[in-house]
């Protein structure tokens, strides 16, 4: 259940979430209809069979947006359409026109959609009420925005803003591997991406590489700038921070997970509860470090 990526948004801390639990059932996931392509809505963070559509520990709320998407490959539709068109051509001795083609395609979709496979999906999000941020477990901004839209649909209003850094993230990341002091608790990992400033310029991707080394220094002297950087926070979490402010490859390290092993949980729900509490605490700390280092704007 630990998040693996973070797409972050900020919202005013004054927002009222007291009605959330009452409003979520209205926006719960409905099974995708026979003639629908997809469906989105909230599901229980503990699994689809559970009832609670949110889980709250102190000021952290855990939400899950579920999805059901019909799988209908375009190639399959086109192939069947082509066969039907050929049949008509042979029968009537003329090529069917555009209108007929469109009607046939619509008929085919109506015929195939109820028989199509349904692909389930799930995206988790954590809302921190104290600091006014929502962290979506996704590396794609679009997925993150979809989750924010679902929260907005449930609440009626949710003015969440994407992160806004008041310093150039490239400059900050480049400074860190060039020897500038890192924020307290942060240390460099062994992965980075360096880009030449020119449009379509050189890109250097390093893995398992000592970042404060002569090789990297030469790239920096040549004008390359850091666009992705692996970092470790207090030996508790490791991640790769991009200039797009999306946290990728998030991993909870032994320093954090060891705390879980010291506690005993007799059921799955208690185990998930403990993990969520741990993750909420670590994400809060990570957010505060990033907020300070990148001067992230507040939403109020």
């Amino acid at each position: 259940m630990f998040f693996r990526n973070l797409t972050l948004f900020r919202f005013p801390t004054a927002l009222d979430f007291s009605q959330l639990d009452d409003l979520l059932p209205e926006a719960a996931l409905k099974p995708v209809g026979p003639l629908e392509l997809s469906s989105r809505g909230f599901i229980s963070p503990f699994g689809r069979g559970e009832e609670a559509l949110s889980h709250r520990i102190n000021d952290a709320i855990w939400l899950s947006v579920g999805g059901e998407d019909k799988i209908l490959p375009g190639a399959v539709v086109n192939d069947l359409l082509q066969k039907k068109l050929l049949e008509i051509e042979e029968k009537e001795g003329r090529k069917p026109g555009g209108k007929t083609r469109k009607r046939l395609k619509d008929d085919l979709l109506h015929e195939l959609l109820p028989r199509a496979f349904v692909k389930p999906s799930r995206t988790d999000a954590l809302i921190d009420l104290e600091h006014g941020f929502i962290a979506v477990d996704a590396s794609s901004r679009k997925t993150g925005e979809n989750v924010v839209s679902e929260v907005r649909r449930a609440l009626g209003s949710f003015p969440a803003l994407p992160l806004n850094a008041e310093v150039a993230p490239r400059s900050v990341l480049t400074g860190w591997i060039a020897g500038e002091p890192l924020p307290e608790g942060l240390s460099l990992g062994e992965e980075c991406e360096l880009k030449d400033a020119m449009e379509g310029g050189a890109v250097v991707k390093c893995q398992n590489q000592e970042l404060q080394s002569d090789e990297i220094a030469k790239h920096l002297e040549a004008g390359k700038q850091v666009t992705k950087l692996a970092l470790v926070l207090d030996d508790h979490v490791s991640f790769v921070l991009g200039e797009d402010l999306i946290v990728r490859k998030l991993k909870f390290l032994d320093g954090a997970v060891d705390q879980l092993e010291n506690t005993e949980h007799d059921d799955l729900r208690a185990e998930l509860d403990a993990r969520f509490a741990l993750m909420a605490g670590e994400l809060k700390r990570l957010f505060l470090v990033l907020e300070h280092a990148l001067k992230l704007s507040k939403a109020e």
Partner: protein
Amino acid sequence: MPSVLHRLIARTPRSVERDTVVLELEDGRSLDVQRVRDPRAKRLKLSVDERGARLTLPWRASLVSGDRFLQQHRAWLADQLARHAPDDGIAALVPGATSQLPLRGEDLPLHWHEGRFTRITRQEDGIHVDLPTRATPATLRRTLRAFYEAEARADIGRWLPGYLTGLSRAPRQIRLKVMSSQWGSLAPDGTLTLDLALVLGRPSAFEYVLVHEVCHLLQANHSPAFWREVEARFPTWRDERAYFHAEGRRLKSRLHRLLSGD
């Protein structure tokens, strides 16, 4: 450019075609005019901005009619070019030589230093540039662009939350880019785009553009209802619009020269 027959029988293409023609002005000077064949263009159009002269042709207009149009408007073109001549005060960014940079309506002192990596920071005594000896002009320009973007984001971060009250949704994404004629736009998906040149001008003008675009979240038009929303949030918007009429082109030119290196 394709032949006349081809243009008449071919389907209208989606792409814009560009080339350059040389026009001799009445005073004997030669001028490069960018000729653009745009499928969306409805009529012949001659325009001049800080990048030079441009002749826009609809898809089915002939090259001869374009040339004739150019010849007919040579005097007007010379007059406009004199008005849009590059201002001597607008200089490109030259490492070690440029001594001032525009920011928020002021020209701030620029201090150059040799550094391990390219970095531009704003401090109390002005703007400081750290530049390695091997850094390329492209790196410097990219860093300057990132610097301006960060400064613009700092302003947006300060102003925007105050205008979110009463909105059911916030902008989906805020992009800063170099825009040729507009100052801002709001896409139907909620993406708010602002011209990077705004951070060079006075802050109140920048704030007005932000408010203007945010109001489009409520009214996706320029109806009286839209202007009422703007008026309620930013009563002095007329002053800022006048500022753009007076200074707008110069702001865009300055940014263009600083970032293009021309």
